[in-house]
């Protein structure tokens, strides 16, 4: 599954990675696994949000791994 990072997470991890996770999974599970794979990057920060198909999704959303998941760092504002 493709995971795309925005903001400072793209700097500290990568713009895009392929990440293996058994399907189906919830966004919360994905975030926890990412935090384990990339500790200390701030992925557990409650302000980090996930986005699928252009829509912000909550931690309990379940995915089959077909769509890329975008992980948005805490926003800076304009």
């Amino acid at each position, binding site marked *: 599954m493709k995971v795309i990072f*925005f*903001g*400072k997470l*793209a*700097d500290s991890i990568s713009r895009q990675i392929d990440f293996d996770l058994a399907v189906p999974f919830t966004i919360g599970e994905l975030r926890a696994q990412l935090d384990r794979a990339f500790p200390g990057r701030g992925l557990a920060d409650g302000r980090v949000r996930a*986005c699928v198909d*252009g829509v*912000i999704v909550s931690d309990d959303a379940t995915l089959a791994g077909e769509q890329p998941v*975008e992980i*948005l*760092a*805490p*926003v*800076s*504002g*304009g």
Partner: protein
Amino acid sequence: MRCSVRLEHEGLDPERELRNFVASAAGAGAVVSFVGLVRQNGADGSIGALVLEHHPTVTENSIASIAEDALRQFHIDRVNIVHRCGAIAPGEPIVFAAAASQHRRAAFEAVDYLMDRLKTDAVFWKREEGPEGRRWIEPTSGDYEARERWGS
């Protein structure tokens, strides 16, 4: 259309935006506009550029949501927000926000509100780039306090 929002990738011309907004606000009694500029000095001294990274859909939606909230909360007729993204040099405009209303007070308050919301809730990732490298910026405590003035 009472609510107009646009992301500008190249350049932002506040005079043209104001002219167009005034023309679109026929029947209103007041237009208030605000132009934000990139400061010459960042947190750690002079900056080469401010870079606003954006999301292809979520960023514009977040700005539209702020504009719609303003239309609901204030007695205003129209709102227009034009926000830059990408690399912006010091001194260049970064945002144009305007409101039109029957009476001036509502337009003043709405634009104040728009800017407080944009500074904390607009989906951008902002960094300064200069001789010392790049530095990511998050809203300040003052930005959050300003936003809290308006409630939820």
